[in-house]
Protein backbone atom coordinates (compact mmCIF):
# COMPACT_ATOMS: atom_id res chain seq x y z
CA UNK A 1 0.00 0.00 0.00
CA UNK A 2 1.28 3.41 -0.85
CA UNK A 3 1.92 5.74 2.03
CA UNK A 4 3.21 9.25 2.25
CA UNK A 5 6.32 8.08 4.06
CA UNK A 6 8.50 8.71 1.05
CA UNK A 7 7.04 12.14 0.57
CA UNK A 8 7.05 13.43 4.08
CA UNK A 9 9.99 15.46 5.25
CA UNK A 10 12.11 13.96 8.01
CA UNK A 11 12.57 17.20 9.91
CA UNK A 12 11.64 17.22 13.58
CA UNK A 13 8.82 19.72 13.08
CA UNK A 14 7.29 17.53 10.36
CA UNK A 15 7.49 14.46 12.57
CA UNK A 16 5.99 16.30 15.50
CA UNK A 17 3.29 17.77 13.29
CA UNK A 18 2.46 14.35 11.88
CA UNK A 19 1.91 12.96 15.35
CA UNK A 20 -0.09 15.98 16.44
CA UNK A 21 -2.28 15.75 13.33
CA UNK A 22 -2.85 12.05 13.92
CA UNK A 23 -4.05 12.97 17.41
CA UNK A 24 -6.38 15.76 16.36
CA UNK A 25 -7.74 14.34 13.09
CA UNK A 26 -9.40 11.19 14.37
CA UNK A 27 -11.97 9.61 12.07
CA UNK A 28 -15.53 10.52 13.05
CA UNK A 29 -17.38 7.53 14.52
CA UNK A 30 -20.26 6.20 12.50
CA UNK A 31 -23.60 7.20 14.10
CA UNK A 32 -24.93 4.30 16.15
CA UNK A 33 -28.20 3.91 14.32
CA UNK A 34 -26.66 4.39 10.88
CA UNK A 35 -27.42 0.86 9.68
CA UNK A 36 -31.03 1.02 10.88
CA UNK A 37 -31.53 4.38 9.26
CA UNK A 38 -30.04 3.05 6.04
CA UNK A 39 -32.43 0.08 6.03
CA UNK A 40 -35.34 2.45 6.63
CA UNK A 41 -34.17 4.72 3.81
CA UNK A 42 -33.94 1.76 1.43
CA UNK A 43 -37.41 0.59 2.44
CA UNK A 44 -38.80 4.11 1.88
CA UNK A 45 -37.12 4.66 -1.46
CA UNK A 46 -39.21 3.84 -4.54
CA UNK A 47 -38.20 0.63 -6.25
CA UNK A 48 -37.28 2.44 -9.42
CA UNK A 49 -35.28 5.57 -9.70
CA UNK A 50 -35.52 8.08 -12.51
CA UNK A 51 -32.91 6.39 -14.67
CA UNK A 52 -34.63 3.02 -14.38
CA UNK A 53 -37.99 4.59 -15.18
CA UNK A 54 -36.52 6.31 -18.21
CA UNK A 55 -34.93 3.08 -19.42
CA UNK A 56 -38.23 1.23 -19.03
CA UNK A 57 -40.15 3.92 -20.91
CA UNK A 58 -37.56 3.97 -23.69
CA UNK A 59 -37.83 0.20 -24.00
CA UNK A 60 -41.62 0.38 -24.16
CA UNK A 61 -41.44 3.12 -26.77
CA UNK A 62 -39.00 1.08 -28.86
CA UNK A 63 -41.33 -1.94 -28.69
CA UNK A 64 -44.31 0.15 -29.80
CA UNK A 65 -42.29 1.58 -32.69
CA UNK A 66 -41.21 -1.91 -33.76
CA UNK A 67 -44.84 -3.12 -33.66
CA UNK A 68 -45.98 -0.14 -35.73
CA UNK A 69 -43.21 -0.74 -38.22
CA UNK A 70 -44.14 -4.41 -38.53
CA UNK A 71 -47.83 -3.55 -39.00
CA UNK A 72 -46.99 -0.95 -41.62
CA UNK A 73 -44.83 -3.33 -43.62
CA UNK A 74 -47.53 -6.01 -43.40
CA UNK A 75 -50.14 -3.53 -44.66
CA UNK A 76 -47.96 -2.49 -47.58
CA UNK A 77 -47.31 -6.12 -48.48
CA UNK A 78 -51.05 -6.89 -48.36
CA UNK A 79 -51.87 -3.83 -50.49
CA UNK A 80 -49.21 -4.73 -53.03
CA UNK A 81 -50.43 -8.35 -53.11
CA UNK A 82 -54.01 -7.18 -53.60
CA UNK A 83 -53.03 -4.90 -56.46
CA UNK A 84 -50.98 -7.56 -58.26
CA UNK A 85 -53.69 -10.18 -57.72
CA UNK A 86 -56.39 -7.77 -58.94
CA UNK A 87 -54.36 -6.88 -62.05
CA UNK A 88 -53.84 -10.54 -62.91
CA UNK A 89 -57.51 -11.34 -62.35
CA UNK A 90 -58.56 -8.38 -64.50
CA UNK A 91 -56.13 -9.45 -67.25
CA UNK A 92 -57.45 -13.00 -67.24
CA UNK A 93 -61.05 -11.81 -67.25
CA UNK A 94 -60.41 -9.52 -70.21
CA UNK A 95 -58.46 -12.17 -72.10
CA UNK A 96 -61.31 -14.66 -71.83
CA UNK A 97 -64.17 -12.19 -72.27
CA UNK A 98 -62.70 -10.07 -75.08
CA UNK A 99 -63.97 -12.29 -77.97
CA UNK A 100 -67.48 -12.24 -76.50
CA UNK A 101 -67.41 -8.46 -75.96
CA UNK A 102 -66.11 -7.83 -79.48
CA UNK A 103 -68.80 -10.04 -81.03
CA UNK A 104 -71.56 -8.25 -79.10
CA UNK A 105 -70.40 -4.61 -79.04
CA UNK A 106 -68.27 -4.35 -82.14
CA UNK A 107 -64.60 -3.48 -82.66
CA UNK A 108 -64.76 -0.27 -80.55
CA UNK A 109 -65.56 -2.30 -77.44
CA UNK A 110 -61.79 -2.61 -76.87
CA UNK A 111 -61.73 1.13 -76.11
CA UNK A 112 -64.81 0.88 -73.91
CA UNK A 113 -63.06 -1.36 -71.40
CA UNK A 114 -60.40 1.18 -70.27
CA UNK A 115 -63.13 3.80 -70.14
CA UNK A 116 -65.23 1.59 -67.83
CA UNK A 117 -62.11 0.92 -65.67
CA UNK A 118 -61.38 4.63 -65.43
CA UNK A 119 -65.00 5.34 -64.51
CA UNK A 120 -64.94 2.69 -61.77
CA UNK A 121 -61.63 4.12 -60.46
CA UNK A 122 -63.01 7.63 -60.42
CA UNK A 123 -66.13 6.42 -58.61
CA UNK A 124 -64.05 4.70 -55.94
CA UNK A 125 -61.87 7.81 -55.50
CA UNK A 126 -64.91 10.05 -55.24
CA UNK A 127 -66.46 7.76 -52.64
CA UNK A 128 -63.24 7.74 -50.61
CA UNK A 129 -62.96 11.54 -50.84
CA UNK A 130 -66.58 11.93 -49.78
CA UNK A 131 -66.10 9.67 -46.74
CA UNK A 132 -62.99 11.54 -45.67
CA UNK A 133 -64.60 14.93 -46.00
CA UNK A 134 -67.60 13.64 -44.03
CA UNK A 135 -65.22 12.47 -41.28
CA UNK A 136 -63.44 15.79 -41.37
CA UNK A 137 -66.71 17.61 -40.74
CA UNK A 138 -67.27 15.53 -37.62
CA UNK A 139 -63.99 16.68 -36.13
CA UNK A 140 -64.09 19.76 -33.89
Amino acid at each position, binding site marked *: *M*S*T*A*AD*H*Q*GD*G*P*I*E*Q*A*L*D*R*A*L*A*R*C*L*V*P*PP*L*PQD*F*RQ*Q*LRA*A*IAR*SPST*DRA*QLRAALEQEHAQQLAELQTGYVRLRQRTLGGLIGGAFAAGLLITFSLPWITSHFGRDAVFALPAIGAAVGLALSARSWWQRSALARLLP
Partner: protein
Amino acid sequence: MQQDNPPEAGPRDQDIVELLRGGALEAAFERVVDRYERKVYRLCCSLLRDPDQAEDAAQESLVRVWKALSKYDQRASLSTWIYTITRNRCLTAIERRRDLDSLSDPAVEHEAEAAQAVGPQPEHDHLAVLRELVEALPERFRRVLTLFYYEERSVTEVAQMLGLPEGTVKTNLHRARAALGERLRVLGLGDPQFWLEKVQ
Protein backbone atom coordinates in the same frame (compact mmCIF):
# COMPACT_ATOMS: atom_id res chain seq x y z
CA MET B 1 6.35 6.75 12.62
CA GLN B 2 4.65 5.91 9.37
CA GLN B 3 2.58 2.79 9.48
CA ASP B 4 1.20 0.57 6.83
CA ASN B 5 -2.46 -0.22 7.04
CA PRO B 6 -3.13 -3.65 8.43
CA PRO B 7 -4.81 -6.01 5.98
CA GLU B 8 -8.52 -5.30 6.20
CA ALA B 9 -10.67 -7.96 7.71
CA GLY B 10 -14.12 -8.66 6.38
CA PRO B 11 -15.34 -8.92 2.80
CA ARG B 12 -13.06 -8.08 -0.10
CA ASP B 13 -14.19 -6.39 -3.31
CA GLN B 14 -13.58 -9.60 -5.22
CA ASP B 15 -15.96 -11.50 -2.92
CA ILE B 16 -18.62 -8.86 -3.49
CA VAL B 17 -18.16 -9.02 -7.26
CA GLU B 18 -18.45 -12.82 -7.13
CA LEU B 19 -21.73 -12.50 -5.25
CA LEU B 20 -22.99 -10.03 -7.83
CA ARG B 21 -22.07 -12.41 -10.65
CA GLY B 22 -24.03 -15.10 -8.86
CA GLY B 23 -27.06 -12.79 -8.64
CA ALA B 24 -26.97 -12.57 -4.83
CA LEU B 25 -27.73 -8.87 -4.81
CA GLU B 26 -28.82 -8.50 -1.21
CA ALA B 27 -25.90 -10.47 0.16
CA ALA B 28 -23.54 -8.41 -1.99
CA PHE B 29 -25.04 -5.18 -0.70
CA GLU B 30 -24.74 -6.34 2.90
CA ARG B 31 -21.03 -6.84 2.32
CA VAL B 32 -20.72 -3.49 0.57
CA VAL B 33 -22.22 -1.85 3.64
CA ASP B 34 -19.95 -3.82 5.97
CA ARG B 35 -16.90 -2.80 4.00
CA TYR B 36 -17.69 0.75 2.96
CA GLU B 37 -20.13 2.40 5.35
CA ARG B 38 -17.39 3.92 7.49
CA LYS B 39 -15.32 5.02 4.54
CA VAL B 40 -18.32 6.56 2.80
CA TYR B 41 -19.26 8.40 5.99
CA ARG B 42 -15.71 9.67 6.46
CA LEU B 43 -15.57 10.87 2.88
CA CYS B 44 -18.87 12.70 3.36
CA CYS B 45 -17.59 14.23 6.61
CA SER B 46 -14.46 15.42 4.89
CA LEU B 47 -16.31 16.92 1.94
CA LEU B 48 -19.30 18.40 3.76
CA ARG B 49 -17.75 19.31 7.16
CA ASP B 50 -21.09 18.76 8.88
CA PRO B 51 -21.81 15.45 10.66
CA ASP B 52 -25.60 15.62 10.14
CA GLN B 53 -25.33 16.42 6.47
CA ALA B 54 -22.60 13.81 6.15
CA GLU B 55 -24.86 11.16 7.66
CA ASP B 56 -27.69 12.03 5.26
CA ALA B 57 -25.33 12.09 2.30
CA ALA B 58 -23.73 8.78 3.28
CA GLN B 59 -27.15 7.14 3.57
CA GLU B 60 -28.34 8.54 0.26
CA SER B 61 -25.11 7.45 -1.40
CA LEU B 62 -25.54 3.90 -0.13
CA VAL B 63 -29.19 3.87 -1.22
CA ARG B 64 -28.00 4.86 -4.69
CA VAL B 65 -25.39 2.13 -4.56
CA TRP B 66 -28.13 -0.35 -3.66
CA LYS B 67 -30.31 0.78 -6.56
CA ALA B 68 -27.47 0.70 -9.08
CA LEU B 69 -25.68 -2.40 -7.79
CA SER B 70 -27.36 -4.72 -10.29
CA LYS B 71 -26.02 -2.52 -13.10
CA TYR B 72 -22.44 -2.37 -11.81
CA ASP B 73 -20.40 -3.39 -14.87
CA GLN B 74 -16.90 -3.60 -13.33
CA ARG B 75 -15.48 -1.03 -15.72
CA ALA B 76 -14.18 0.76 -12.63
CA SER B 77 -13.17 -0.93 -9.40
CA LEU B 78 -15.95 -1.31 -6.86
CA SER B 79 -14.34 1.18 -4.47
CA THR B 80 -13.88 3.79 -7.21
CA TRP B 81 -17.49 3.31 -8.28
CA ILE B 82 -18.82 3.72 -4.73
CA TYR B 83 -16.61 6.74 -4.02
CA THR B 84 -17.72 8.38 -7.27
CA ILE B 85 -21.38 7.98 -6.30
CA THR B 86 -20.59 9.40 -2.86
CA ARG B 87 -18.63 12.37 -4.21
CA ASN B 88 -21.41 13.22 -6.65
CA ARG B 89 -23.96 13.10 -3.85
CA CYS B 90 -21.79 15.36 -1.69
CA LEU B 91 -21.28 17.83 -4.54
CA THR B 92 -25.05 18.02 -4.97
CA ALA B 93 -25.41 18.68 -1.24
CA ILE B 94 -22.75 21.40 -1.40
CA GLU B 95 -24.53 23.08 -4.32
CA ARG B 96 -27.85 22.87 -2.51
CA ARG B 97 -26.29 24.37 0.60
CA ARG B 98 -24.82 27.18 -1.50
CA ASP B 99 -28.27 27.91 -2.92
CA LEU B 100 -29.77 27.97 0.58
CA ASP B 101 -26.99 30.23 1.83
CA SER B 102 -27.73 32.69 -0.95
CA LEU B 103 -31.37 32.76 0.19
CA SER B 104 -30.65 33.29 3.88
CA ASP B 105 -31.38 36.63 5.49
CA PRO B 106 -28.14 38.47 6.46
CA ALA B 107 -29.84 40.03 9.51
CA VAL B 108 -30.86 36.62 10.87
CA GLU B 109 -27.38 35.28 10.18
CA HIS B 110 -25.89 38.18 12.09
CA GLU B 111 -28.14 37.51 15.09
CA ALA B 112 -27.24 33.85 15.07
CA GLU B 113 -23.54 34.67 14.99
CA ALA B 114 -23.99 37.12 17.86
CA ALA B 115 -25.85 34.48 19.88
CA GLN B 116 -23.01 32.03 19.30
CA ALA B 117 -20.44 34.62 20.30
CA VAL B 118 -21.96 35.15 23.76
CA GLY B 119 -22.09 31.42 24.45
CA PRO B 120 -19.39 29.51 26.32
CA GLN B 121 -16.04 29.74 24.57
CA PRO B 122 -14.53 26.41 23.49
CA GLU B 123 -11.46 25.22 25.26
CA HIS B 124 -8.48 26.52 23.32
CA ASP B 125 -5.89 23.90 23.91
CA HIS B 126 -3.11 23.53 21.41
CA LEU B 127 -4.62 20.62 19.55
CA ALA B 128 -7.75 22.72 19.13
CA VAL B 129 -5.58 25.47 17.65
CA LEU B 130 -4.11 22.94 15.26
CA ARG B 131 -7.59 21.73 14.35
CA GLU B 132 -8.66 25.30 13.64
CA LEU B 133 -5.61 25.82 11.46
CA VAL B 134 -6.50 22.68 9.50
CA GLU B 135 -10.04 23.97 9.07
CA ALA B 136 -8.66 27.25 7.77
CA LEU B 137 -6.57 25.53 5.09
CA PRO B 138 -7.67 25.79 1.45
CA GLU B 139 -10.33 23.20 0.71
CA ARG B 140 -8.18 20.95 -1.48
CA PHE B 141 -5.49 20.74 1.21
CA ARG B 142 -7.95 20.26 4.06
CA ARG B 143 -9.78 17.39 2.37
CA VAL B 144 -6.61 15.52 1.54
CA LEU B 145 -5.12 16.07 4.97
CA THR B 146 -8.19 15.01 6.96
CA LEU B 147 -8.84 11.93 4.84
CA PHE B 148 -5.17 10.98 5.01
CA TYR B 149 -5.37 10.74 8.78
CA TYR B 150 -8.88 9.27 8.79
CA GLU B 151 -7.64 6.50 6.53
CA GLU B 152 -4.55 5.77 8.60
CA ARG B 153 -2.11 7.53 6.29
CA SER B 154 -2.98 5.69 3.11
CA VAL B 155 -2.32 7.86 0.06
CA THR B 156 -3.83 5.23 -2.24
CA GLU B 157 -7.11 5.20 -0.35
CA VAL B 158 -7.31 9.01 -0.27
CA ALA B 159 -6.59 9.17 -4.01
CA GLN B 160 -9.39 6.71 -4.70
CA MET B 161 -11.81 8.48 -2.40
CA LEU B 162 -11.22 11.89 -3.92
CA GLY B 163 -10.76 10.66 -7.48
CA LEU B 164 -7.29 12.22 -7.69
CA PRO B 165 -3.95 10.87 -8.89
CA GLU B 166 -1.69 9.70 -6.07
CA GLY B 167 0.92 12.26 -7.07
CA THR B 168 -1.59 15.08 -6.60
CA VAL B 169 -2.53 13.73 -3.18
CA LYS B 170 1.13 13.60 -2.14
CA THR B 171 1.75 17.11 -3.43
CA ASN B 172 -1.29 18.48 -1.63
CA LEU B 173 -0.27 16.71 1.57
CA HIS B 174 3.18 18.20 1.38
CA ARG B 175 1.82 21.67 0.74
CA ALA B 176 -0.77 21.34 3.48
CA ARG B 177 1.87 20.39 6.02
CA ALA B 178 4.15 23.16 4.84
CA ALA B 179 1.32 25.68 5.18
CA LEU B 180 0.49 24.39 8.66
CA GLY B 181 4.14 24.53 9.73
CA GLU B 182 4.40 28.08 8.50
CA ARG B 183 1.27 29.20 10.35
CA LEU B 184 2.44 27.48 13.54
CA ARG B 185 5.77 29.32 13.31
CA VAL B 186 3.89 32.60 12.91
CA LEU B 187 1.88 31.77 16.04
CA GLY B 188 5.08 30.93 17.90
CA LEU B 189 4.17 27.25 18.05
CA GLY B 190 6.83 26.00 15.67
CA ASP B 191 8.99 24.28 18.25
CA PRO B 192 9.00 20.50 17.54
CA GLN B 193 9.75 19.66 21.14
CA PHE B 194 6.62 21.52 22.19
CA TRP B 195 4.43 19.37 19.92
CA LEU B 196 6.16 16.17 20.85
CA GLU B 197 5.40 16.91 24.48
CA LYS B 198 1.80 17.77 23.65
CA VAL B 199 1.14 14.46 21.93
CA GLN B 200 2.83 12.25 24.50
